[in-house]
């Protein structure tokens, strides 16, 4: 796994001129991604395009260098990620392979089929491919957005990179926060693609390809999730579903263990990661290493479960403990890597965890993201199911009481049917509305907008985040059932925009570790879509089928435990006696007013409230604090005191005039 970057440049320049005019820019861009690929950084200046690559060597360590070029056509590729079924694809390709790498399989596949070759890939990728035959620069990104890819179209052409910071290092544009993206993020947890956090920088949407040719950019979606009733196999029995899920997951894990370096696994102590560890341990015949986060504060900690699973599976287990003070100390780097306004501190422990993995000289981990989305694990799905049931008889005094079963930990004051009605009855009259499942969550997080500075509110204008999302949704999604729509929204907002990026790829790559996600194998996703809903969410029993499959494979305490949401300390870690040194400075009234997004006076009141000795921060207070702190840190690292790549790292980028 790696970092990629590059740009188009005028054709017809002499090699010397190309180097003089564009060499340093390509070097700086490639160096800005060094954390993603510390093993080698190389760039090539071709007639028409420049491509840079920072390599984390995993497959064909000896000869899988990039950029990689096809001799006959001059087609040249830089690639971040993995095409796991490259061995099977390779057998079907008639091509004079010179390496054992999956990179060369992409090259050969493209030459055989054009960009539609990605339809046969099982994997997680972002790549850029220069085709000199027609002067096209192609960009492609995997189906669910495991690997990132950003681009900017400027008067000079197209530039692209795994992270936006490389575009700024190449001076294609100056970083400026996109007000609408900030507004969208405080409601939806991420900007609506293709918008990114920065003005002028776009994210290539997951499952899409883009062609840039003669100054024109064409973006096309090549894969999307189909959750319509028509794909559901109504006749599927529980026994058959279990067989098929077992076979698909086993193969997804098997393909993801392919590497020329050891593959380890994250173990949270929950169902999904425990199951993956069990499947991997079986295939590795007992050599699996597992890595976990523990919290000093007991209410966030799951170590008892992690130890139980590690012991039962016999893995070589490593754990790191996160103290409140770590969260504050890590947050500036978290934001620098994530390049995003955050609503939770939960990514921070993952940055500490990937450091532990890196210290154990491990480059690859399996991780359990995606299971909750596709096998219906989240409370949000149960909430949607209950609201749907209630919406059929809105006047019923009994139906809202189901929320007590759903959220037994809610304070008493919320539990009378009238209170539940006020809180969860929002939008009940319109179960067909596209945001039926998410409106409560989005309205709740949207409370952060109360802290916006008046001038910022003016900049945002009439922009409505929920409407912006609605406008990019395919029309067919609106005809689906509420649960199917909920899943689609979850995959296209929280999963790709936050869990896989801010909390996933960026926290892993921050310490040069590649994550692999068996539950997000598209064959597993498509199988889950075919399985009848009641086998996944059985009344209010979440992930029923996955639990059945896990029974006997992981310790019973894991399959029997109630779902434990992963959280990390917020207010106690960022303000008050354990506050990090940066907190006082960037959260000061003057600094907040200076950045211009939030209202300094309101933030001052919030900080005072949360720093009080007996403070009991509400969910809304915590989210607002993280939103403000991450915005301030983002402004600090990208706008006021931009971090440039170290000169030594820039100089270390090997610049080639040609590659083979």
């Amino acid at each position, binding site marked *: 796994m790696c970092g990629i970057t590059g740009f188009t440049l005028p054709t017809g320049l002499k090699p010397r001129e190309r180097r003089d005019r564009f060499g340093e820019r390509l070097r700086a861009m490639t160096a800005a991604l060094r954390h993603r690929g510390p093993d080698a950084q190389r760039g090539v200046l071709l007639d028409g395009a420049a491509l840079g690559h920072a390599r984390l060597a995993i497959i064909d360590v000896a000869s899988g260098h990039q950029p990689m070029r096809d001799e006959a056509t001059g087609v040249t590729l830089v690639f971040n990620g993995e095409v796991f079924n490259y061995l099977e694809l390779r057998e079907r390709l008639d091509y004079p392979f010179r390496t054992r790498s999956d990179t060369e399989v992409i090259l050969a596949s493209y030459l055989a089929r054009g960009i539609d070759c990605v339809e046969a890939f099982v994997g997680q990728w972002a790549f850029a491919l220069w085709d000199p035959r027609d002067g096209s620069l192609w960009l492609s990104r995997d189906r669910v957005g495991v690997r990132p890819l950003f681009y900017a179209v400027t008067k000079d052409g197209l530039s692209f990179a795994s992270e936006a910071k490389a575009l700024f290092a190449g001076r294609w544009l100056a970083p400026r926060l996109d007000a609408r993206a900030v507004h969208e993020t405080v409601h939806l947890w991420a900007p609506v693609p293709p918008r990114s956090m920065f003005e002028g920088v776009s994210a290539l949407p997951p499952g899409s390809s883009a062609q840039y040719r003669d100054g024109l950019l064409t973006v096309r979606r090549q894969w999307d999730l189909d959750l319509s009733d028509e794909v559901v196999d109504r006749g599927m029995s529980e026994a058959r579903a279990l067989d098929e899920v077992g076979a698909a997951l086993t193969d997804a894990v098997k393909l993801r263990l392919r590497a020329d370096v050891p593959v380890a696994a994250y173990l949270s102590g929950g169902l999904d990661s425990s199951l993956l560890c069990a499947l991997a341990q079986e295939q590795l015949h007992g050599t699996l290493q597992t890595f976990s986060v523990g919290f000093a504060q007991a209410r966030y900690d799951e170590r008892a479960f992690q130890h139980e699973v590690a012991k039962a599976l016999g893995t070589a287990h490593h754990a790191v403990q996160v103290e409140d003070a770590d969260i504050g100390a890590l947050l500036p780097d978290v934001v620098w890597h994530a390049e995003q306004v955050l609503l939770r501190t939960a990514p921070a422990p993952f940055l500490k965890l990937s450091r532990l993995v890196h210290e154990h000289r491990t480059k690859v981990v399996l991780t359990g993201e995606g299971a909750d989305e596709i096998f219906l694990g989240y409370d949000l799905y149960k909430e949607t199911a209950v609201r749907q049931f209630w919406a059929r008889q809105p006047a019923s005094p009994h139906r809202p009481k189901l929320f007590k079963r759903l959220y037994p930990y809610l*304070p008493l004051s*919320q539990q009378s049917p009238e209170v539940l009605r006020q*809180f969860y009855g929002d939008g009940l009259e319109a179960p067909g509305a596209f945001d039926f499942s998410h409106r409560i969550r989005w309205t709740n997080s949207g409370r952060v907008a*109360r802290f916006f500075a008046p001038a910022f509110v003016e900049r945002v204008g009439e922009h409505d985040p929920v409407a912006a999302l609605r406008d990019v949704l395919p029309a067919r999604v609106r005809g689906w059932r509420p649960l199917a729509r909920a899943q689609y929204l979850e995959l296209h907002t929280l999963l790709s925009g936050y869990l896989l990026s801010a909390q996933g790829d960026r926290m892993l790559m921050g310490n040069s570790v590649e994550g692999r996600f068996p539950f997000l194998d598209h064959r597993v996703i498509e199988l889950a879509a075919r399985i009848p809903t009641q086998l996944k969410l059985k009344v209010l029993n979440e992930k029923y089928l996955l639990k059945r499959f896990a029974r006997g494979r992981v310790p019973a305490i894991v399959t029997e435990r109630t779902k434990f949401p992963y959280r990390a300390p917020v207010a106690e870690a960022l303000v008050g006696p354990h506050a990090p040194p940066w907190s006082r400075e960037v959260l000061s009234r003057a600094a907040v007013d200076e950045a211009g997004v939030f209202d300094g006076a309101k933030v001052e009141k919030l900080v005072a409230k949360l720093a009080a000795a007996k403070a009991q921060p*509400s*969910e809304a207070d915590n989210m607002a604090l993280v939103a403000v702190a991450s915005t301030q840190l983002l402004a600090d690292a990208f706008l006021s005191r931009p971090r440039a790549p170290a000169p030594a790292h820039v100089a270390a980028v090997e610049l080639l005039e040609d590659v083979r």
Partner: protein
Amino acid sequence: MSPREQLRKFISDTFFVDDFQDSDSFLKNRIIDSTGMMELVAFLEATWALKLADTELKPENLDSIDNLVRFLERKQSAR
């Protein structure tokens, strides 16, 4: 300060909202969330030396400035 003014100041200071009507539902408008309700109850009990029974924790008593003012008047006249 009248109870109405005291309540408005508390809501505004604690939940960081200025722009709401006395008749607006706190819950429906997401002015207050689950922990917020606890904060509100603690504030009522401390400020007016009251004790609220579980049966009194309902929207018609607590879910807007208007409802709170009426509830306080009833509570105090009952003493």
